[in-house]
């Protein structure tokens, strides 16, 4: 995580300033609650049969893999001042494409077929992302609307691809992506880590991060400084699409079925939540990939905790809401001041709003 931060502060005081500090605390608290219910919750053991690590923690990590993918993509989109509501639908399209491809090939052992399915799924997701990007940057529609349209159309597209059915297929190598193990660790977790690190390194080692933030902070000024918003926005939405595709592959490969009405359903909300819990502002600007990761992990932990504690289905949303509200309160300056006791301006000048007729508006 720390690779994504430019200035890492060592001291605890510095950590407290980090917007995702409370996210980490919340994860620890949730784990603690689970441990109180069952002291062996955190136990990680080695499955004697195959040497794989098993345990609730690994389940949480595996469950978080798809959320992490879309949260990372979302954090880039949000940094540009946009939003991507279509990630859930892109997930199901990616799932539908790969399942149909695998089913049509009928070969349940070939890795070539699995790679083909993966490649096809990612290509289609990238395409959908590019369409989003074009709608936002070239046509000039508001991101909320462009991606809302894609969210509606995407799920329909998935249904068209599978003729409305929940398609199942069998292919060992493809299944391995979500269920396999390497050196005792789940492949899907390793893949998620690799993807996050790659994105983080590319964004922060290049000037991409700076330019994305610039667009999000003030599109007019960025344009005047010579930044090309179009290419950048298309890239960002495409990346978000591809990452959603990866998430879709993770989600469908784990059960080798695509559920056209459920796969990825409302996951965009989880992704947005993750990014915000990580400290980003939906108005765009500075982003932190570490924050998005913490947010994603928190959501996965929360989902697992609800099941582990046996919270009844009907109370689940209220439980989730309570956690979110408490977390938001802890992150707010007003409450934090109770801890740090610093005087602040009565009205912190909110950041100058981007002028209205902007590229993304």
């Amino acid at each position, binding site marked *: 995580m720390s690779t994504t931060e430019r200035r890492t502060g060592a001291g605890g005081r510095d950590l407290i300033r980090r917007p995702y500090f409370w996210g980490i605390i919340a994860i620890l608290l949730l784990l603690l609650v689970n441990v109180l219910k069952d002291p062996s919750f955190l136990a990680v053991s080695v499955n004697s049969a195959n040497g794989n690590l098993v345990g609730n923690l690994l389940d949480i990590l595996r469950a978080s893999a798809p959320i992490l993918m879309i949260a990372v993509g979302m954090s880039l989109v949000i940094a540009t001042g946009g939003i991507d509501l279509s990630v859930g639908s892109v997930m199901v399209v990616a799932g539908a494409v790969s399942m149909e491809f695998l089913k049509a090939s009928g070969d349940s052992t070939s890795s070539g077929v699995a790679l083909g399915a993966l490649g096809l799924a990612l290509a289609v997701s990238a395409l959908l992302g590019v369409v989003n990007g074009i709608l936002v940057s070239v046509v000039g*529609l508001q991101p909320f*609307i462009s991606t809302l349209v894609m969210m509606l159309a995407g799920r*329909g597209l998935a249904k068209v691809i599978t003729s*409305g059915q929940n398609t199942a297929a069998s292919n060992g190598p493809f299944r391995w992506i979500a269920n396999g193990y390497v050196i005792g660790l789940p492949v899907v977790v390793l893949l998620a880590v690799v993807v996050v690190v790659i994105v983080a390194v590319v964004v922060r080692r290049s000037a991409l991060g700076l330019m994305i933030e610039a667009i999000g902070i003030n599109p007019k000024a960025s344009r005047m400084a010579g930044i090309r918003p179009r290419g950048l926005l298309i890239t960002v939405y495409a990346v978000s699409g591809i990452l959603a595709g990866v998430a879709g592959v993770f989600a469908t490969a784990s059960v080798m079925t695509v559920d056209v009405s459920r796969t990825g359903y409302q996951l965009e909300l989880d992704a947005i939540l993750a990014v915000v819990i990580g400290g980003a502002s939906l108005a765009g600007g500075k982003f932190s990939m570490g924050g998005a990761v913490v947010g994603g992990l928190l959501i996965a932990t929360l989902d697992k905790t609800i099941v582990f504690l046996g919270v009844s289905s009907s*109370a689940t*949303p*209220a439980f989730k809401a309570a956690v979110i509200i408490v977390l938001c309160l802890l992150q707010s300056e*007003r409450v934090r001041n109770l801890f740090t006791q610093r005087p602040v301006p009565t*009205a912190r000048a909110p950041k100058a709003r981007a002028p*209205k007729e902007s590229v993304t508006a």
Partner: protein
Amino acid sequence: MTITMLPDPPGAETKSRIGRLTDVAARTWRTNLTTVPTLAAVVIFIAMMIYGELAYGRILQYNTLSNLLINNAHLVIIAVGMTFVILTGGVDLSVGAVIAFSSVAGLLLANAGWNPWVVMVLMIGIGTAFGVASGVLVQYFKVQPFIATLAMMFLARGLASTLSTTPERLADDSSIRSLATKLKIIDGEKVNDLVLTPGVLIAVLVVVVGFFVLHRTRTGRTVYAIGGSEQSAALMGLPVVRTKLWVYAISGTLAGLAAVVYTSRLGIAQNITGIGWELDAIAAVVIGGTLLTGGAGYVLGSVVGALVLGLMNVLITRDGGIRPEATTIITGGILLVFVLLQRALTARRRE
């Protein structure tokens, strides 16, 4: 010193006279720039009506039009609330869930023998309470609107299902149902009647009041100012805090009112009512020409937006041959066409 003066271009004088005229025309356009998207929505709505009548028939008749209003009265009501919120640059995702909670709680009370009028007031009050809670989170704790109202959405949905997961049914003689009494204005053949319900009248009243508040009160103007620039509004000495609280309270209250109207019509309440209605409301607002970034738009536009959505469903139903997997694509497509058209119109005017 050397001064070179350029000649006036020939005909400069006449040109400037014509120029002045075009200037005035251009200025009028620019003044009305914000109304263009809304006007576009109205035009497209009428076009859809005509298309429907020509293609499928039986659109421009009493019952279809009455039902368009009756079936979408609650949507109109929440769209008005959503307009307020979106004008300030926020969003309220909780409305659908608040409707669910408010109606379930209300019917439980009604069935427990509470006075139906008290129940209705309480139902509205529940909406207000959720709205105020969102507003407090947004304004005092600087939680982003999207997140604050998302949390309220989960909370309301969760509380609703904690109350009951089975449909609650309103007694047949409850006076809450009276809001859905059909007032036949013109009695046509069979069911082809021009009908209004008190629910529709409430919606109309909400629209009128909403329009009045936005355009004829200081609070309303502050809503627009906040949407333009919250920082500027604060530095201009406008009551930003109070107004933002108001806006969320209004949206919540109207969600409560929509719950009353919707429940009275169906006679049941359920924890799963209203899933996705917030997106319908947002879509209605956007179709009506309101900018999601805030600061520009009209309540009347949102009303048209809500009716467009309703009419679109009617047309899809009338067609009847649309494959199920294509329906969401079509909904998305129509939404896209709408915003594209508006975009094209406003872009041309801006030149």
